């Protein structure tokens, strides 16, 4: 690794925007937060946007004609437009706020699924899906008598387009739901090509962009999918909010999901009529301050620059992998860095992922260990757990180096060396 390498972005410029990054870990070491695939940290702009709403103009939205309610409503709807622009949707009303990626996928599996998937039908997923993009489809399949299939991965953890085509041809699934970026392997899938292949065979498509939206520009029109989902808390935004994008015609044809206030046009003692988009899919009081916080987050990311974020993370991944490859018995999961977003997962022969993560934590380095909500993927790799370091634009090359060093130490410490009980 040459030290003279030019980085796509200067992390130092942004770190001070993130209050948590200035804290120290329990051990006294500075915090190296490398668990961004689980959840990112928050710039002051986001924290302040939420607090400012509660302090200055908070009220319930939509239904009030007093000043506060009008201001909240305006800000909530402005947030919708800002996030819609972030995804380049055609209309703001195609942008539904949900409780998260998981809630968004469940909305599609239940509402779209119950209207479009029947007995004997097929649903196609990939082996790299997060449980959020598996379990709802199992639930649908069980309910209607459909079948769920998984496209296997290549040996280096990528999707093989030939296999996809073969399975699409053989199964003619009603839905092909896949992740844009694997949350374990980091693999970046060719979304537009996959959508195109599915569309040609009459399959609807859902793209899980939970790990894509944080790390590069997303253009739903370029992707062409029927549904695209992501979570606020992975793009420097608040918890409690996610996004469901759906093409207008598809959302219009779908029955509503959750029932309640706001999503209705009229209710009588005999039944109800749903409201038009986007309210149709936003039952009850929506995540108001969360939407306002999410707006601040995507504006902040726009200011950092999503292209640069993606390039920079790849540089960090390259640096990390170069270091990790030196550690005996360590295997890096997934493809070469050029096919990855900012995620490096690995396993060390004979050492449990939790022991590695715990050791790193004593050094102030936060990584994640476990199955990362992708048990089928781990089963297919023949392991039960992996250790994952996931980067964001505020991480520095020094943090990457510290992580690599600490993994080496962990390996030395935990490897078997003939210790005996006393």
């Amino acid at each position, binding site marked *: 690794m040459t030290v003279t390498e030019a980085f796509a972005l200067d992390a130092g410029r942004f770190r001070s925007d993130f209050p948590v990054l200035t804290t120290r870990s329990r051990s006294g070491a500075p915090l190296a937060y490398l668990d961004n695939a689980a959840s990112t940290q928050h710039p002051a702009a986001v924290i302040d946007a939420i607090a400012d709403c509660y302090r200055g103009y908070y009220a319930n939205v939509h239904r009030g004609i007093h000043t506060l309610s009008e201001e909240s409503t305006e800000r909530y*709807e402005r947030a919708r437009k800002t996030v819609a622009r972030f995804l380049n949707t055609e209309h703001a*009303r195609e942008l539904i706020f949900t409780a998260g990626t998981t809630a968004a996928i469940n909305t599609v599996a239940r509402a779209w699924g119950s209207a479009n998937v029947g007995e004997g039908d097929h649903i196609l997923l990939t082996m790299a899906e997060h449980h959020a993009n598996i379990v709802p489809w199992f639930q649908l399949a069980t309910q209607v008598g459909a079948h769920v299939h998984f496209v296997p991965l290549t040996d280096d953890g990528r999707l093989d387009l030939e296999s996809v085509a073969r399975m699409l041809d053989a199964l003619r699934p009603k839905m092909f739901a896949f992740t844009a970026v694997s949350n374990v392997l980091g693999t970046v899938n060719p979304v537009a090509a996959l959508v195109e292949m599915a569309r040609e065979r009459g399959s609807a498509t859902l793209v899980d962009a939970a790990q894509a939206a944080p790390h590069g520009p997303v253009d739903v029109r370029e992707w062409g999918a029927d549904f695209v989902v992501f979570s606020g808390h992975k793009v420097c935004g608040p918890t409690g909010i996610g996004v469901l994008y759906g093409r207008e015609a598809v959302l219009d044809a779908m029955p509503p999901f959750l029932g309640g206030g706001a999503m209705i*046009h009229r209710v009588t003692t005999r039944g109800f009529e749903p409201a*038009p*988009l986007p309210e149709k899919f936003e039952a009850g009081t929506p995540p108001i301050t969360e939407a306002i916080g999410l707006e601040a987050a995507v504006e902040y990311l726009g200011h950092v620059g999503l292209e640069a974020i993606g390039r920079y993370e790849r540089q960090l991944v390259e640096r990390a992998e170069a270091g990790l490859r030196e550690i005996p018995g360590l295997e890096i999961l997934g493809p070469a860095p050029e096919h990855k977003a900012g995620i490096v997962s690995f396993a060390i022969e004979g050492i449990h992922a939790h022991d590695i993560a715990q050791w790193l934590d004593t050094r102030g380095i936060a990584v994640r260990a476990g199955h990362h909500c992708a048990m089928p993927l781990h089963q297919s790799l023949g392991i039960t757990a992996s250790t994952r370091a996931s980067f964001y634009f505020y991480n520095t090359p020094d943090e990457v180096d510290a992580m690599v060093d600490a993994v080496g130490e962990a390996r030395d410490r935990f490897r078997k060396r003939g210790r005996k009980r006393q």
Partner: protein
Amino acid sequence: MSIDERDIYEEHVLPHYEDPYHRGHCEVATHAHEGDNPLCGDVVRVEIELDDEGRVRQAWFEGDGCTVSQSSASMLMERIEGMTVEELKQFSAEDMLALFQASLTPNRQKCCLLSWRVLQAAMHSPIDGEDEDAEVDSFGGPSLSEES
């Protein structure tokens, strides 16, 4: 609401509310439509008679709701008589808000634009027996700023 706006209500809005123009039915209507704003329960029905040259000969409304929704409907009926279909189509939401004069918050804009939207829909709803019991439209969705 400033004192000025209050005056506009007094001089302009409330008289239309109490003494509406052409509230009732148009016996010889060629086009009609009804719509509501479910958030407030405002309802407006518009019935118009176009003459052979496509000019509004008569415009009538019926409805129920707040002063803004009902007085704006009255103003609109008064305004459009004599206009051509082409002119009606060019009569924008902004024109409607200008006609109303009093400044309105986004939610009240929805009330003010209800009759205007119903009118636009009525232009596409010629009365030919079949369309008569067409569904009632609702315009609860986006506010003006989102539309434009």
